[in-house]
């Protein structure tokens, strides 16, 4: 594969080239005490020298101790946003219906052209995108708006050179090294106090773009540094999903442990909202006051909402215990049967952004203890 070394000027050239090729470039930046994804035009917008301390229900940004005078741009990991925001947005119109004489005229929602370039996609996020691909465009019924956005997408992935305490991608086999479907991958290198980026192409479009950038040839030392950094990141993982989680869950449907989760869980739905693989939606009719036309919208939903399991006569899952069990067994067990992989990539967002810090790995450990 084609590769080169860029300095920060080269990184800027990459961002500029993406805008010039008609992409809306989105990337990490600090906003309201967090690293979020927003429009990115300048390297200067990236979170230079920022690390994110993460624990159950806790997220804080700090300045890094600068190694050899370099202010790293990618020392943070994943924040409250995920790329799902853009590919599978929290709300979108589906179609519109109008009274037309005696009948109804139905029109699909305007097919908006979306050419995003995601800058700074982590390994766990690529894995999550691959999972949503299987769900939303992999089967018989393809979500056309999702497909359009996915086809227009250019992905610049980033290898993680640091893990947060909430990360567990190693145990989910999704990271920290970038793999799968991407256009370019970056690795931030700082050895010897020289701030530079190893850029490697992962697709034809990526190669074409790489060739136009002001890079120099990648030396073996750079590749060795990348490998060492990734190995160190993998060793940093504090959390792990226990092996055999799926079997354990299948065997724990009647566990008394669910009630212990229910006592702590707020069923607020933060976990499903921040999860990059959770895809559930509901639809809503937005009628005109005169009832002569209506728009159908699709909105993000959560298995923690009472209405989610509503059928004639009432909701099936009324208790928090039933809802948490539904969520975790879907993620780690039924997802496998349904889509051929787990529905969790180990990104840790649901742990950090749960206001009471409920931890998916910890709950599996506790279920195992309850079993033993």
């Amino acid at each position, binding site marked *: 594969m084609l590769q080169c070394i860029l300095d920060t000027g080269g990184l800027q050239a990459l961002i500029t080239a993406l805008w010039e090729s008609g992409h809306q470039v989105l990337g990490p930046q600090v906003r309201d005490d967090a690293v979020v994804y927003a429009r990115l035009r300048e390297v200067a917008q990236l979170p230079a020298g920022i690390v994110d301390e993460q624990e159950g229900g806790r997220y804080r940004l700090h300045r890094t101790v600068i190694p050899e005078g370099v202010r790293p741009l990618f020392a943070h990991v994943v924040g409250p946003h995920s790329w799902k925001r853009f590919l599978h947005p929290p709300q979108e119109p589906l179609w519109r219906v109008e009274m037309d004489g005696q009948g109804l005229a139905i029109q699909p929602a305007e097919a908006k052209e979306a050419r995003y370039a995601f800058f700074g996609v982590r390994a766990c996020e690529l894995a999550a995108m691959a999972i949503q691909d299987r769900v939303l465009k992999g089967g018989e019924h393809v979500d056309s708006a999702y497909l359009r956005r996915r086809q227009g997408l250019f992905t610049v992935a980033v290898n993680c050179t640091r893990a947060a305490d909430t990360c567990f991608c190693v145990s989910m086999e999704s990271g920290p090294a970038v793999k799968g479907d991407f256009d370019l991958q970056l690795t931030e290198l700082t050895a010897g106090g020289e701030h530079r980026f190893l850029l490697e192409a992962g697709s034809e479009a990526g190669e074409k773009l790489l060739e136009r950038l002001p890079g120099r040839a990648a030396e073996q030392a750079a590749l060795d540094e990348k490998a060492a950094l990734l190995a160190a990141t993998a060793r940093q993982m504090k959390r792990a999903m226990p092996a055999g989680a799926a079997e354990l869950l299948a065997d724990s449907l009647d566990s008394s442990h669910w009630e212990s989760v229910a006592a702590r869980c707020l069923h607020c739905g933060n976990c499903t909202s921040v999860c990059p693989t959770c895809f559930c939606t509901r639809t809503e009719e937005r009628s005109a006051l005169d009832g002569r036309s209506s728009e159908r919208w699709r909105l993000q939903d959560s298995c923690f909402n*009472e209405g989610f399991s509503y059928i004639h006569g009432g909701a099936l899952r009324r208790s928090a215990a039933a809802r948490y069990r539904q969520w975790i067994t879907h993620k780690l067990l039924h997802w496998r049967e349904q889509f051929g992989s787990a529905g969790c990539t180990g990104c840790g967002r649901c742990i*950090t952004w749960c*206001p009471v810090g409920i931890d998916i790995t910890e709950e599996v450990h506790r279920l195992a203890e309850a079993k033993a």
Partner: protein
Amino acid sequence: MKPKLAVWKFSSCDGCQLSLLDCEEELLQLAGAVQIAHFLEASRATRPGPYDLSLVEGSISTAREQAQIRWIREQSRQLVTIGACATAGGIQALRNLLDFDEVQQQVYPQPDFIDSLATATPVSDHVKVDFELRGCPIDKGQLLELINAFLNARRPNIPAWSQCQECKAAGTVCVMVSRGEPCLGPVTQAGCGNRCPAVGRGCYGCFGPAERPNAAALSRRLQELGMDPASLQRYYRLFNANAPAFREESARHE
């Protein structure tokens, strides 16, 4: 015949009714779709009942109001309460937790002329209510949605889940997780338009308890974040102090 709409006021500040006038553009459309038969905030002209839809603002705080709400119920095909006062008793329901005589002495130099019940209670404590529109004040978008749903004979799209989901849909960074700021959002119903968290403040609970709130779990977290029991007790006592879930959680910290 256009359906007849009536707007009624009990013990309240008028803010929720004003949301209807605030609809501006949509108000004209609305006036075309319904006959506004009783709405004193907008017009002195009134028409006799019965009414197809009554919107009721305010809590029941006097004996006269007790009688009047029964009469309105009899006159109304559908009765919808609007705002924290009508749905939970409002800020004035704080008196339910205190000795009423003492409260009167504290507030008025000559309380002899006060003709009031010892409690301020939601309309649903007195008559059957068909739907409750939450908020202090209500959200005008939700009000229009409610009337729209009524006119089109469908269920209103008014969710009962948590404020947190509004944060996440809007992309707002959680103030509790990122700054340790107390927030009632996880136990508060969505619908306000994410006003407080969007400007970096914790949610005050204006929209009342969300569906099946687990306030005890939230309180434990708030204590971990450093809130003392006295503050915790007051924390649930705002506009919806008398909503059962908030009232009970507050009482646990007395």
